């Protein structure tokens, strides 16, 4: 059963009465209409209490009708879609909407934690700092959990978000923030000039304040003018209007961030649609027509449910046909607040009184009061008699000192208007103070951005239209377009007189920041304790640091600080404005970059074949590489890897090594170029030969290694490690373009063009003969160790064949065009069947390189020199190369450097683990006697024990020494013997055979 909409007005409003929607709030059923927000639907149902406050658990109601709302925050939806701190004032109503209030236990009506109010003296500004200082360990165990239970906002879902989020780019000449009169006029002017226009409106209906305040434009009622304007804009192909889209930030080079709530107005996104979309909009010019926010006046009890911003009250009455109260009082210090009186009277509601802080009011207002029969009281509101069920009585301090009481069930408050200076201030622009409107207006906006209309301090309707139209036209001109046709829309300007009033002194809590429960006395306390600077004030009291970023509280806060310090408001200044303007879900920033699509995945050419074989894959950078190929009956990875190693060492195996970076180096100076980037010489490499090369960084540390082959006089084929493929390309391009532009050399990345396989083992040649055309001579004489040349395969495919060995076995690497990669793997399996061919993965590859003492990633760690790796002799002394001079610096050639050695446990049954520290035998482990660490380990099937490589101080002088391996991470201590790093076939006979 849904309840009757007790406070819905009989007619009017922009809600669709033919489309009722059922929803629930705190488990209770209600109904509203299409076009309602959750807040307006609650208002229509007479619900006043919507939440409990952050610190004191005070009952709170709805304060505003927009994204500046501090109080009406709910947990929207349930289960995995539960979203905390959602503003009821912007959440669109949909059928079945399910919302719950926050910060109450066990219920909103009866909240145990509201006893916090009794202990209020300890919750004053800085209480966290003062109260929970000591001991430090109490923080995690006791204080923080307790504070989080007592305070804090809504609860996160705690389950993965089931929805998708998108990211997109858009480009335009003129970007407009806001669709009020200013924004629409700007869009008309820019659109008519032919400029590409994007207009973002955070609301789901276009029109801004016109929707509630109406008025006459070009002789038409506002609603008709909006309709006419939108149809003109809709006919312009280059004007794009985005509703439910908030411009939240501005970045360098005219790039803007916007969040589009694509499907937040539905229970869940339709299939294949996203929940929200993050836009990056590149705009030549931007017109900020974001309007202004009405500001509260701070007085005792100003947080009582039923106290509402005057403009919000107009919105609920006029736009949503929902009455926040039946008998309304107005507390204002300006002309504009009186509009609420007119709107309320027009809707048949009663006005209890107007409390006007100004000394004088206009004769029309006085006559309206006498005609309608309500008193005008000159003075201020000093207190509220009311509670969780709303306002009952309002205490008034009359000018002159007398007191009065007003019976009313709602109080509309207007303290004037603050232009929305967020966007214009995000590049450290400091807004400037204007005395005539007692407000900050934009100053120092980022290049290309201009504020217009109410966002620029122009509060009259006519002025908004003029400023918006002029700003739109100027932005289009600046973006290279001419003047459009048509003239400025015309409307009257309303008078705006204001007597600044920020705070009414009195008994009881007077709230400045309702979301963070910061009171006027907190600000006074902060000042007494020396936190006078606005940045200190903000952090000490947490003023403006809640999810609403102090949209309704910051200016009042600094005005109160100005008053207690005796400074002016501009002297006191504002805090720095930072994006985002509204909270943006992390999911929107992540977009599709989550789970398996967190980053791109690169598959090797033989990936699908390897998957068919049941390979286990490992992520290496973006790549998925076959790690090992388990066979039925094998109990663990070690058994599989050991079998693969033994098969290679005794027969033949192959491994996809396509992930290596591959670069074709062409040009007359290709050899000279390589001489400058490698420590060894390549210009003297014979055509048809390969050579291992080592690159340094300019600071003398090893950068990368790999084999480079000379395929023609002016053509080298260079390989890099998998990890550094992209970086080495970038580095070589830097060398070519910036350091050595005089060289005739070109670089082409061919990593993705070639599928490359290592084929290794004593039967390699037997297998290759089945693959390679019979005319090719693969004998030791015809294709010696370190030979490299193009060959024809059976069937005619051209391949590049390299006789190089990482495993230490007789081996070749063969490159075929990538599209043949999978076929190559299948053919190797078929042709290799007679020889027991065995595919092997990266684990077996690693085992064999450790057995052979080859260095790899763990040794090329960004701290090692060529000499540390045992490759010092490769450094040419006859030429200049990158890193040559720095590699000779004192510390890089010191005798006590940690160098690569082999290690094996003295207990042959012990497993080694990399990362263990090397400590001299008999010494207590510690930083003073730490002499290095184990870099790579494996179980060596050949040696039938665990072996490893390590970086050890003076290691090469200490072959045979027993040292201590200390592994505090795993709690292991054992002895190891330092040995030659080449465990397998030290004289290299096998790879040459």
């Amino acid at each position: 059963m849904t309840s009757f909409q007790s406070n819905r007005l009989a007619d009017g409003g922009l809600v669709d009465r033919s489309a009722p929607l059922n929803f629930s709030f705190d488990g209770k059923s209600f109904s509203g209409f299409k076009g309602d927000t959750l807040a307006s639907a609650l208002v229509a149902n007479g619900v006043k209490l919507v939440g409990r406050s952050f610190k004191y658990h005070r009952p709170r109601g709805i304060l505003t009708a927009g994204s500046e709302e501090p109080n009406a925050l709910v947990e929207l939806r349930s289960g995995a879609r539960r979203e905390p701190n959602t503003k009821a004032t912007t959440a669109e109503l949909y059928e079945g909407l399910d919302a719950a209030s926050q910060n109450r236990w066990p219920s909103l009506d009866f909240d145990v934690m509201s006893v916090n109010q009794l202990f209020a003296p300890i919750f004053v500004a800085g209480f966290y700092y003062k109260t929970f200082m000591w001991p430090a360990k109490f923080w995690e165990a006791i204080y923080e959990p307790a504070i989080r239970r007592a305070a804090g906002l809504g609860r996160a879902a705690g389950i993965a978000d089931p929805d998708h989020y998108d990211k997109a780019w858009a480009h335009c000449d003129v970007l407009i923030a806001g669709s009020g009169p200013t924004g629409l006029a700007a869009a008309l002017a820019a659109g008519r000039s032919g400029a590409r226009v994007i207009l973002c409106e955070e609301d789901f209906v276009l029109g801004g304040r016109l929707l509630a305040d109406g008025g006459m434009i070009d002789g038409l009622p506002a609603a008709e003018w909006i309709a006419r304007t939108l149809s003109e804009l809709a006919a312009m192909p280059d004007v794009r209007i985005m509703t439910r889209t908030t411009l939240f930030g501005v970045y360098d080079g005219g790039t803007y961030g916007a969040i589009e709530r694509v499907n937040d107005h539905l229970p869940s996104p339709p299939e294949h649609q996203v929940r929200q979309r993050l836009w990056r909009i590149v705009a030549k010019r931007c017109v900020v027509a974001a309007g202004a926010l009405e500001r509260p006046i701070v007085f005792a009890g100003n947080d009582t449910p039923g106290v509402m911003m005057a403009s919000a009250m107009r919105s609920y009455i006029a736009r949503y046909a929902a009455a926040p109260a039946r008998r309304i009082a107005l507390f204002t210090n300006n002309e504009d607040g009186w509009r609420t009186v007119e709107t309320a009277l027009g809707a048949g509601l009663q006005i209890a009184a107007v409390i006007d802080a100004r000394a004088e009011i206009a004769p029309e207002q006085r006559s309206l009061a006498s005609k309608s029969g309500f008193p005008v009281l000159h003075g201020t509101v000093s207190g509220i008699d009311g509670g969780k069920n709303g306002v009952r009585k309002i205490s008034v301090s009359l000018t002159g000192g007398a007191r009065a009481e007003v019976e009313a069930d709602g109080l509309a408050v207007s303290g004037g208007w603050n232009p929305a200076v967020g966007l214009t201030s995000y590049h450290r622009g400091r807004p400037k103070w204007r005395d005539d409107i007692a407000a900050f207006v934009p100053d120092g906006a980022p290049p290309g951005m201009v504020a217009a209309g109410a966002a620029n301090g122009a509060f009259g309707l006519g002025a908004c239209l003029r400023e918006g139209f002029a700003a739109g036209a100027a932005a289009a001109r600046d973006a290279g377009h001419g003047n459009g046709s048509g003239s400025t829309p015309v409307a009257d300007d309303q008078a705006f007189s204001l007597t600044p009033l920020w705070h009414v002194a009195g008994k009881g809590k007077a709230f400045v920041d309702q979301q963070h429960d910061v009171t006027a006395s907190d600000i006074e306390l902060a000042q007494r304790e020396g936190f006078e600077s606005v940045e200190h004030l903000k952090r000490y009291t947490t003023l403006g640091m809640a999810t609403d970023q102090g949209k309704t509280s910051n200016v009042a806060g600094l005005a109160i600080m100005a008053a207690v310090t005796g400074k002016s408001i501009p002297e006191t200044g504002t805090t720095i404005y930072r994006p985002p303007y509204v909270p943006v879900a992390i999911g929107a920033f992540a977009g599709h970059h989550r789970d398996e699509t967190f980053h791109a995945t690169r598959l090797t050419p033989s990936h699908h074949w390897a998957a068919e074989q049941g390979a286990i894959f490992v992520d290496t950078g973006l790549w998925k590489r076959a790690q090992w190929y388990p066979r039925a009956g094998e109990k663990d990875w070690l058994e599989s890897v050991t079998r693969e190693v033994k098969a290679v060492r005794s027969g033949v195996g192959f491994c996809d090594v396509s992930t290596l970076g591959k670069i074709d180096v062409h040009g007359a100076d290709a050899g000279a170029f390589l001489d400058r980037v490698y420590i060894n010489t390549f210009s003297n490499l014979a055509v048809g030969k390969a050579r291992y090369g080592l690159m340094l960084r300019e600071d003398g540390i090893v950068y990368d290694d790999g084999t480079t082959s000379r395929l023609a006089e002016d053509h080298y084929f260079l390989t890099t490690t998998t990890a550094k493929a992209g970086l080495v390309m970038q580095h070589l391009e830097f060398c070519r373009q910036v350091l050595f532009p005089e060289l005739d050399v070109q670089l082409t990345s061919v990593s993705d063009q070639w599928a490359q396989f290592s084929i290794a083992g004593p039967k390699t040649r037997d297998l290759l003969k089945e693959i390679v055309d019979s005319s090719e001579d693969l004998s030791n004489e015809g294709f010696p160790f370190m030979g490299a040349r193009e060959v024809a395969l059976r069937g005619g495919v051209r391949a590049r064949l390299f006789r190089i060995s990482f495993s230490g076995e007789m081996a070749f690497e063969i490159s075929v065009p990538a599209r043949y990669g999978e076929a190559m793997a299948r053919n190797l399996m078929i042709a290799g069947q007679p020889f027991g061919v065995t595919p092997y993965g990266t684990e077996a590859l690693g085992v064999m390189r450790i057995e052979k003492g080859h260095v790899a990633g763990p040794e090329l760690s960004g701290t090692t020199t060529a000499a540390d790796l045992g490759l010092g002799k490769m450094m040419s002394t006859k030429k200049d190369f990158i890193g040559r001079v720095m590699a000779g610096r004192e510390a890089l050639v010191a005798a006590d450097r940690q160098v690569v050695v082999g290690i094996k446990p003295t207990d042959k049954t012990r497993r080694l683990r990399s990362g263990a520290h090397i400590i001299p035998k008999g010494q207590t482990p510690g930083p003073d006697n730490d002499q290095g660490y184990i870099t790579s380990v494996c179980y060596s099937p050949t040696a039938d024990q665990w072996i490893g490589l390590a970086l050890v101080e003076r290691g090469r002088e200490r072959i045979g020494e027993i040292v201590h391996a200390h592994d505090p991470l795993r709690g292991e201590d054992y002895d190891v013997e330092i040995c030659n790093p080449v465990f397998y076939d030290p004289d290299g006979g096998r790879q040459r055979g």
Partner: protein
Amino acid sequence: MRITCPFCGERELGEFTYLGDAKPMRPAPGASEDEVYDYVYLRDNIAGVMDENWYHGGGCRAWLKVTRNTLTHEISAVEPAAGAGARQVAK
């Protein structure tokens, strides 16, 4: 931030990689250790306009000399590196 690549046009920051100050020139072969040390390690920390090396790795792979104000991120000039191919294109 957006950079106008002389080859590809205006592109967004994510396509580029920053290296640093473009002023230091790699010393000629035979330079002293001190000269090379200066080149490798010593950099001005400019608050204002400076020339920087940027790499258009997400586009044409050109190295660019970008003149940027480090205080405002305003880019006042973009030139291809000497060996980036601009001269060949111009011919």
